[in-house]
C-alpha cells in the first residue's frame, strides 16, 4: 500500500537509509565508538576531580558526575547532527543540483537520515549508558515527573539543534571553506551546552552568557531536567527558551535557505 505524501517519503527514506547504514557496518561502529568515548573521557576526568576534592565539585558528587555524563551521552546522541560538515562537499560537487530538481525540500532527506541513524545506534548507546550508570555507581533515580518533563525538553532540543545546525550548514552557499566556522561553532557548543562540564561549574558571568545563547537549551536543559535539577520555574523558562530559539531558528532557516539557493543558482549549480 502506498502511504500518501510526506509520510510516504519518510517511509521510503527510512528504508533507504537503513540499507545504506548496513552497507557500512565498520564505519557505523567507528562512529559509535566516537560517540561513546567523548563523554566517557569527561566522565572519568570529572569523577576523578570530584574524588580529589573530597567527593564533590561545583555541587556535583562523584555519583552525580557519573549520572551527568552517562545521560549526556544519550542526550548528545539524540540531538547531534553532522550535516554541516557535509554541506561544503555537497555545494562544491554540485550535489544540490539533482536535489533541487525534486519536488520536496532537501531538509526532509537529512532529517530522515538523522532519525534513522539515531534509531539504529540508540540500540547500542542506551545499554552503554546503563552500563556506565551501573559501573560508575551513578546517583540516578529520576521520578516519573522528571521523565515526563524530560520527554518534551528532549524533543524540543532535537528540533532546535537540527534547525540551528542546518542553518549553519547553509553558510557553505556563500563560503567555499566552511570548516573553520564549523570548528568554532563546535567549540562554542562544547563549552556553553554543558558538554565539557556542567554549567554550574562555570563562573557566574559565563553562566549568564550560556543562558542567553541557544546551546544550553540543546543539551544541558533536557539533561538536567532528567537528573531532577530543574525546578518548576526553571522548567517553564527552559521550555520557553527552547520554543523561542526554535522559532528564531526556523525563521533563520527559511530566510537563509531562500537566499542560499538563489546564490547557489546564481554562481553556477
Amino acid at each position, binding site marked *: 500500500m502506498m502511504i500518501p505524501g510526506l509520510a510516504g517519503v519518510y517511509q*521510503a527514506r527510512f528504508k533507504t537509509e537503513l540499507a545504506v547504514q548496513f552497507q557500512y557496518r565498520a564505519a557505523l561502529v567507528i562512529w559509535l565508538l566516537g560517540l561513546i568515548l567523548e563523554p566517557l573521557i569527561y566522565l572519568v576526568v570529572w569523577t576523578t576531580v570530584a574524588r580529589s576534592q573530597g567527593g564533590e565539585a561545583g555541587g556535583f558528587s562523584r555519583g552525580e558526575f557519573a549520572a551527568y555524563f552517562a545521560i549526556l551521552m544519550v542526550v548528545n546522541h539524540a540531538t547531534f547532527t553532522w550535516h554541516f560538515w557535509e554541506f561544503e562537499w555537497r555545494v562544491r560537487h554540485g550535489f544540490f543540483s539533482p536535489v533541487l*530538481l525534486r519536488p520536496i525540500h532537501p531538509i526532509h532527506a537529512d532529517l530522515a537520515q538523522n532519525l534513522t541513524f539515531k534509531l539504529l545506534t540508540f540500540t547500542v548507546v542506551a545499554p552503554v549508558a546503563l552500563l556506565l550508570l551501573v559501573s560508575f555507581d551513578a546517583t540516578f533515580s529520576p521520578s516519573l515527573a522528571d521523565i515526563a518533563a524530560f520527554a518534551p525538553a528532549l524533543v524540543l532540543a532535537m528540533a532546535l539543534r537540527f534547525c540551528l545546525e542546518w542553518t549553519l550548514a547553509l553558510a557553505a552557499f556563500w563560503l567555499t571553506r566552511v570548516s573553520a566556522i564549523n570548528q568554532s561553532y563546535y567549540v562554542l557548543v562544547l563549552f556553553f551546552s554543558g558538554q565539557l562540564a556542567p554549567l554550574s561549574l562555570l563562573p557566574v558571568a559565563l553562566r549568564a552568557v550560556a543562558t542567553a545563547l541557544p546551546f544550553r537549551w540543546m543539551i544541558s536543559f533536557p539533561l538536567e531536567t532528567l537528573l531532577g535539577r530543574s525546578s518548576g520555574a526553571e522548567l517553564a523558562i527552559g521550555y520557553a527558551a527552547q520554543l523561542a530559539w526554535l522559532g528564531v531558528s526556523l525563521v533563520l532557516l527559511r530566510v537563509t535557505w531562500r537566499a542560499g539557493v538563489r546564490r547557489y543558482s546564481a554562481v553556477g549549480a
Partner: protein
Amino acid sequence: MSAELAPAIQVRDLRKTYSVPEREGGVRAALVSLVQRKNREVAAVAGVSFDVPRGEIVGFLGPNGAGKTTTLKMLAGLLHPTSGEVSALGHVPWRRENDYLRRMTLVMGQRNQLAWDIPVVDSFELNRAIFRIPADHFRRVVAEMTELLDLGELLKKPVRNLSLGERMKCEIAGSLLHQPEVLFLDEPTIGLDVTMQRRIRGFIAAYNQRHGATTLLTSHYMADVEALCRRVVVIHQGRLLYDGELSGLVDRFSPFKTIVVDFASDPEFADGQLAGIVGADGEIVSQTDGRLTLRVPKARTAQITGQLLAQLPIADLTVEEPPIDEVIERVFAGEAREAEPVPAA
C-alpha cells in the same frame, strides 16, 4: 494563444552573466588578491530566444563553453538568469514550483541522482515516493523502462557496482519514472561505447514517440543529433547562431560538396587539366592510387561532374554532402561568421 497550443518552451532574450574572480599566477598575486579582489563579468548566455513546440526533439549544439548547459540549467530552474524570460509548460522555471518539477526532468551526464550504495530499484522506490507515483503506475513504468533499456538484472545491483553505461541507463530511467512531459538531456551518451549510445538514442526516440515528450538535447556526438533531431539550435559564445532544420544547417554553412571518383585505369592528366576542371573555387582534397577526392562549390557540382565524366576514364563517381561533424566544426571554427545572421525559426 491557448495553453494547449502554446509551445512547451518559450525563451526570450535569455541572458546569464557570471562574475568570475581572476588573478595572475604566483605568490605575489595571491598576496595582492587577499586585499584586492578582481572580478570579470563573463556572459555565458548573451540574449538567446527560441521556442520548442510540444512533442518536438530539438538538438542544442555548440562547442564547449558555448552556453548550452547554462541555458539548460536555466530552463530546468537550477539557475536564475541575469535577465530574459522563459515559460516552460506555463511556469517560470527558476521559481521551481512543484507542479513544474513533477512534469520535467534534467539528465546531466556526469551527475548522480541515484543513491550510490543501494540497489537501483531502491532508489527508484524513493523517487516513487518523492514524485508521488501510484504503485500500479510505477510498476508499469519500470516494466516499460526495463524493456526499452534492457535493465533486467541491473535493477538489483548497487549503483557503485555498475559500469558507466549501465549507470547512465539507470540514471535515465530513474529520471523518467514520473513520466515528465519535458526532458532536458545534457550529454546523455557521453563516455559511452557505440552500442550503448545507439541503445540510449533508440530509447529517447521511443520515449518521445510513446509519450509525446518535448525534448531539448545537447550532445557532442553528431550521430545522436542526426538520429533524433530534425531541428537544431546552434549557439556559440552565448549567442544564437542558427535555428532551423538540421539539413538547412548543412546548406547554409557548407556551400561545398565532395566528389569522389574511382578510375577504371590510371588516368593521365594534361598539364593543368584537373585544376581547370576544379576551378579556383574548388579544391583537390586527395589524389591517391585510382581515387580522386574533390571539394567543389555546390552550384558548380553538376558542371564539374559532367566535365569529369566526359574527360576521364571513370569507373565510379559519387557526390556527397560533407559529414555533419565537419559542418559543425566549420561553424564553430568561425568560418561561417561571415554568413548573414539567421532569424530564429
